[in-house]
C-alpha cells in the first residue's frame, strides 16, 4: 500500500476518534434538549465546572480559598491531602447532582411553559454564573488532570502497521491515540445506555413528553421538577465524563468550556434529539473536518476546521432540516 493511502486512512481513523470526543460533549446537549426542549448553552461550562470540581477534590483544594483569604486575610490553599481518584469522582458526581437540584429549584421551576429561546437565554445566564462561580470556587489557574488514563500513540498499532507500506516510504505506522480509544469506548457505552433509557423506560417516555409540551406533561401528572432534576443530573454526569476526557488532554482551565463550540455542529448534524445521532454526527464531523484540513487546508492557509465543521453540518441540514436522526419537524396546519 502506498504511504499516501495509508496516511489518508490514518487521517480518517483519527478523525473518527476525534469525532467521538466531540460526541461526548454533544451528548450532554442532546440529553437536555430531548428531555425538556431546552437548548442548554451552559453544557460547556458545566463540563469545565465538573472537571474543576474533580481536580479540586483530587488535589484537596479548599473551595473559595481566594475569597476566604481576601475576606478573612487568611492564607489557606489546600487541605493538604489528596483524594483517591474514585472517591473524587464520586464527590464530583454528588456536586453535579446538587447542581441539578439547584438549577431546577432556582431557575427552571419558574420558567415552565416558556418559549425555547427564553429557556435558552436562561441557560446562557446560567453559563455566565457558573463561569464566575467556578473560578471563585476553584481559582482560574490551569490544573493538570491525571486520572491515570493512558495517552499517546499506541506502539502496538504502530508496530503492526508499519510494515504495510514500503520500507523507504517514510511511513511510521498508524497513529492512534490511546486516550481517544478509551473515550470511544466510554462514548459508545453511554450512548447505548442512554438510548435504552430514553426509548424504553417510563421515565424516558416522560422525558420526551416534557420536551414536546410542558403544560400537557403537567396535566398528565408528569412532575417537571423530577424530570428536570433527573436530566440535568445525567447531563452533569456526561459533562463530567467529557470534561475529564478533554481535561486530560489540555489541562483543566477556562478554555475547556469552549469545547461546546466543537459539539454544536455535531449536534446539528446528528439531530438535537437523537442520542445515537450525537455519535454518528461526531464521526462525520470528525472525519469531514480532518479530511478537509488534510486535503484542502494547505491550499487555503489551514485552520479550516472550525468553520468547515459548521459548513458540513449546514450542507447536511439543507437536505434534512432535522439533522440525520432528529425528530421530524412537524409542519401542519
Amino acid at each position, binding site marked *: 500500500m502506498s504511504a499516501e493511502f495509508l496516511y489518508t486512512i490514518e487521517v480518517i481513523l483519527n478523525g473518527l476518534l476525534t469525532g467521538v470526543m466531540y460526541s461526548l460533549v454533544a451528548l450532554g446537549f442532546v440529553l437536555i434538549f430531548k428531555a425538556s426542549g431546552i437548548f442548554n448553552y451552559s453544557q460547556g461550562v458545566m463540563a469545565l465546572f465538573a472537571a474543576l470540581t474533580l481536580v479540586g477534590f483530587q488535589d484537596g483544594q479548599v473551595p473559595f480559598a481566594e475569597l476566604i483569604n481576601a475576606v478573612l486575610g487568611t492564607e489557606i490553599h489546600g487541605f493538604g491531602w489528596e483524594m483517591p481518584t474514585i472517591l473524587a469522582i464520586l464527590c464530583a458526581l454528588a456536586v453535579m447532582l446538587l447542581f441539578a437540584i439547584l438549577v431546577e429549584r432556582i431557575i427552571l421551576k419558574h420558567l415552565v411553559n416558556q418559549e425555547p429561546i427564553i429557556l435558552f437565554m436562561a441557560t446562557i445566564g446560567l453559563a455566565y454564573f457558573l463561569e464566575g462561580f467556578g473560578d471563585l470556587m476553584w481559582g*482560574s*489557574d*490551569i490544573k493538570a488532570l491525571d486520572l491515570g488514563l493512558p495517552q499517546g500513540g499506541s506502539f502496538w498499532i504502530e508496530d503492526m502497521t508499519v510494515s504495510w507500506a514500503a520500507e523507504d516510504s517514510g511511513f511510521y505506522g498508524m497513529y492512534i491515540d490511546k486516550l481517544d480509544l478509551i473515550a470511544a469506548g466510554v462514548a459508545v457505552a453511554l450512548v447505548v445506555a442512554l438510548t435504552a433509557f430514553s426509548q424504553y423506560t417510563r421515565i424516558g417516555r416522560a422525558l420526551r413528553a416534557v420536551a414536546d409540551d410542558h403544560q400537557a406533561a403537567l396535566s398528565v401528572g408528569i412532575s417537571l421538577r423530577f424530570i428536570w432534576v433527573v436530566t440535568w443530573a445525567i447531563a452533569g454526569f456526561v459533562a463530567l465524563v467529557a470534561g475529564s476526557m478533554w481535561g486530560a488532554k489540555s*489541562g483543566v*482551565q*477556562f478554555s475547556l468550556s469552549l469545547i461546546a463550540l466543537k459539539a454544536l455542529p455535531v449536534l446539528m448534524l446528528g439531530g438535537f434529539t437523537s442520542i445515537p445521532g450525537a455519535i454518528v454526527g461526531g464521526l462525520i464531523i470528525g472525519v469531514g473536518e480532518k479530511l478537509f484540513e488534510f486535503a484542502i487546508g494547505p491550499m487555503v492557509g489551514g485552520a479550516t476546521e472550525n468553520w468547515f465543521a459548521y459548513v458540513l453540518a449546514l450542507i447536511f441540514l439543507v437536505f434534512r432540516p432535522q439533522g440525520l436522526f432528529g425528530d421530524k419537524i412537524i409542519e401542519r396546519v
Partner: protein
Amino acid sequence: DLNVPALNYRTGPYAPSGIPYADGFSDYMTLLNERDGGVGGERINVMECETAYNTQKGVECYEALKGENPLVFIPQSTGITYQLIPKASADGIPVHSMAYGRTSAVNGKVFEWVFIMPGTYWDAASMMVKYAMEQEGGSLEGKKIALVYHNSAYGKEPIRTLEELSKKHGYTLTQLAVDHPGQEQKSQWLQIRRERPDYVFMWGWGVMNSVAIQEAANIRFPMDKFIGVWWSGSEADVLPAGAGADGYKSITWHKPGADFPAYEQIKTLVHDKGKAAGDGTTIGEVGYNRGVYAAVIVTEAIKAAQEATGKSNITAADMRDAYETLTITAERWAEIGLPEFAQPLQASCADHGAPHMGAIQQWNASEKTWTLVSDFMTPDEEVVGPLIEEDSMAYAAENNITPRTCE
C-alpha cells in the same frame, strides 16, 4: 505617588499566563515601596485593571486610568496594544508592550511613544533560527522547519521573518495554523508526524500551548527540537502535559527560577507580611519573572526620569524621554538584587526595543524547572532591520506621520 496602571488578566481564557505576571509585577513594586519607600521618595501606586485579555475591556481600562496621570501603559495584549498605539500617542502617554504588540513599533522614529524592550517577535524568530542552526552544526540547508501558530495577528507575526530567513539559510518552512482556542490539533500534529520536520517552532497562546506540547509528546516528536516563542514557554504550558513535556524548549529573555537576592527580599518583605499580590505560589515562575522584568524597566525609567528632571513627581512625558534613553547595565542588575537576571540594555531614539537578546530555556519535567541551555543571542539584523523599516514606514504613510530623524 506615581501611578502605574497594570492592565492585568487574572481571569478569562488566558488567566493561567496572566496571573503569575501580575503577581510578579505588583510584588516587585510592593518590594520597592516597602524597602525603599518607592522610587526617589515617591511610592509607586499600581493601578490594577482587569482586562480578561479582552480588547474592549482594555480600552475601557485605558480610558478609566488615563485621567489619573499614569506614567506608562503596559497593555499585556497585542490586541490592546494596537488600540492604544494611536490613542496613547495622541494623549502623550508611553506604551510599553514588552516583547509583544506591533513589532515595527520598535522603530522610534515613527513610534515615538511605543517601547518594546526587550525585543520583538522578529528578533525571536531570527534567534530561534540561529539556535537551530547552531544545533545543526552551522547550517540549515535542506532542513525542514514547521511553524505551529495561533491563527491571529500575534501568531502570524513571525511568518515574514521566517520566510526571509528560509531564503537566506535554505530551509523549507511549513506553516500550520491553529484556530483559537486550539483544543484540537490532531490534524496539525498528524501532518508534523508525516512530514517529520527537523524543528517545530511554536507561536502559541493559552490552551493551544499545552495541547500542542501534549500532542508533540504523543507522537513522540523529539522535544528538544520543539521550540516555542517566549509566550509559549511558561509553567502553565508544560505542566498539563506532565512528563511528556520533558525537554521542551522555548526562547526567553531572562533567567528562570527564583534564585536572586531580590526574590529573597520579596519573600521576607512582601510575602511574609501578607502583602503578596496573589497567593504567593507563583514566585519564580516564568510569568512571574516577566512581571518583575516589566517592573524593573518601569522603575528604572522612573528613576532615570527623576534624575533627568530633578523632580521626584514626574510626568508621562518625562517617562517617555527616560524610556528612550534608558540604560541598565549588568552592574545595575546586580545592584537591584537581580544579578544576571537579564541582559544589560541601552535604548535609543531610533531603537525602542533594546537589548534584542534572547536565550533558549529547557523544561525539566521531573524537577519542574526551566534551565537556560544556550547563551544569549542576538538576532539577524540584516534580515529583521529592513522588514521593520518597511512596515513602520507603511504605517507612517497610512497615518500621515513624518518620521523623526533621531540625530
